């Protein structure tokens, strides 16, 4: 069984079918990309998987367990982590503190332990801090650790968000347009990073507009258009797929 199975998923907004009867699988240890023109339903699909939106019908299985209908924090605890198209970091907190939040599900000190500052929480706090710093180092934004998040550049914020998502030690990482707003060098860097993440054993599902990045790193590609899946194949087959070329470049007659 695949790590993530999406079966006949539907989501409507009023009369608009944002996600229309979409099914596909994501195999353990692979990188799968979801592409499609603007408004194809890619981000809606992500929100359905992460639990931010309820589906109208259909099922999502993760690690053999049905996850649709669960709350985002419950899904996160099972090992799905994500980044956002428009970066969502915690304002008023430093970069390090942001990444420390990624360790939330890997630690357990509660209200009472926190208020009494119980000694058993000290090594836990230290571990949270050390791990968070490690992920900042990994993403090359270690120097931002003590800077408040709104004072960072866009690229640095993206790095911190990435570090935060990785800090949860996810099984499946959802990346919503990781290369948006980055220049070609930074995009190439992100590509290498995602490959490295895959090599460390994390499965990646990403939404991306940058075709060269998608073609480079993906093992498989799903194409959405107006909420429907119109193709699912290996990258070089997708490049040849006439339907895909048509929706991206338009009809010859048009």
């Amino acid at each position, binding site marked *: 069984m695949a790590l993530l199975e999406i079966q006949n998923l539907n989501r409507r907004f009023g009369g608009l079918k944002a996600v229309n009867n979409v099914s596909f699988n994501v195999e353990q240890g692979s990188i799968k990309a979801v592409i499609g023109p603007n408004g194809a339903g890619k981000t809606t699909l992500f929100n359905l998987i992460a639990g931010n939106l309820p589906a109208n019908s259909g099922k999502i299985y993760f690690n053999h367990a049905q996850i649709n209908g669960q709350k985002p*924090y419950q899904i996160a605890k099972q090992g799905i982590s994500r980044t956002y198209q428009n970066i969502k970091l915690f304002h008023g907190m430093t970069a390090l503190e942001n990444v420390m939040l990624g360790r939330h599900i890997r630690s357990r000190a509660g209200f009472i332990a926190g208020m009494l500052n119980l000694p058993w929480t000290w090594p836990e706090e230290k571990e949270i801090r050390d791990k968070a710093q490690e992920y900042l180092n990994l993403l090359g934004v270690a120097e931002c650790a003590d800077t408040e998040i709104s004072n960072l550049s866009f690229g640095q914020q993206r790095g911190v968000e990435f570090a935060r998502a990785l800090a949860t030690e996810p099984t499946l990482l959802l990346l919503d347009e990781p290369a948006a707003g980055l220049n070609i060098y930074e995009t190439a860097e992100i590509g290498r990073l995602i490959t490295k993440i895959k090599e460390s054993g994390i499965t990646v599902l990403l939404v991306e507009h940058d075709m060269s990045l998608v073609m480079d790193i993906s093992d498989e590609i799903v194409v959405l258009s107006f909420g429907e899946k119109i193709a699912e194949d290996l990258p070089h087959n997708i490049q040849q797929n006439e339907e895909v070329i048509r929706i991206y470049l338009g009809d010859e007659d048009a």
Partner: protein
Amino acid sequence: MDLLKRYIPVLFLLGLVIGIQLMTHFTGTGYYLTQLTMSAYYSVVVIGLCVLMGYGGQISLGHAGFFAIGGYLAGALTTHNLMPFKDYGLITFLDRTGMLVASKDLYGGDLLTVEPWAACITAVLAAGIIAFTIGGPVLKLKGHYLAMATLGFGIIIYRIGLATQYFGEADGISEVPGFKLLPGIEVSGSFGARVLNYYIAWAVVIVAVILLLNLIHSRVGRALRSIHGAEEAANAMGVNTSRYKLYIFVLSAVFAALAGVLVTHYNGGIGPSEAGVMKSVRYVAIVAVGGMANIWGALIMGIVLNFLSLRGVFGSYDDAVFGIILIVIMLFAPQGILKINPWQQVKSFFSVLAAERGEDTADS
């Protein structure tokens, strides 16, 4: 190291508390201690609310309600005579378990009332349970809507106090006995116990400050701040945001109720004005002046403003002053009054001038 940095201001506060007491002792101004004691209790409400608002990002315009729940329940339980109900099973049971105390009233009649410790625990638990019950649905609301809902709650509590005979209607409850915390340590307004009560109140404040400082520097505190920063992302990181919001709401309500209990025993009574909407607005204003996410700011402002108010400095414009403070702070110092750095402003003013000069000379 971090821990040291966290607790040094607490030691400083302790020194200040002792210093002020000694100063009033030698200058013969011991009457200030009464207002300082009450300010201390009110500050417990304020710092609890500060963690809810500044760190959790949830507003409450109903905290005077929780204060009143604590105060009214403790007051009513420790003053109403249970003698006529002596033969009821429940009362006999409570009497046998030591939850009731017998005493004589002014005219030598027999009084049977709830023991203050039992009353205190009941009152604080009741406030916690009420906060838990209303918090569930109410905290689903955000921003103005949450403010409106908690305001409504405060008004309900105020009206209940005003309309219920058990709670003394417009007169409130008076002749509340002292609260013996330990043998020889009693919260009461008696003249001879003024210094002792000053230290009791400040001990409560210091314990409350330490607990909250620990909390905000813990994993839970971080999670609360993340909810404030970006609730959706916090949820995606595995933070059960609705539960955290509820718990911090309950915690701040418990702090308010505890303060209510202690003030009621200290004053020997409580009236409906303690539950009034203007009291809630006052607490919110103080948190805002202190800088929202700043426990020390809230504490300092809580002491200073409550002290001035209790000394009658604002006269009959008391509530108006707090309204004005809220407006002015929101307009000119949304980061709180302690974040205003006059020297910085003077410097930036002159640097702007200098820059303009520079441009002038460059042009010519």
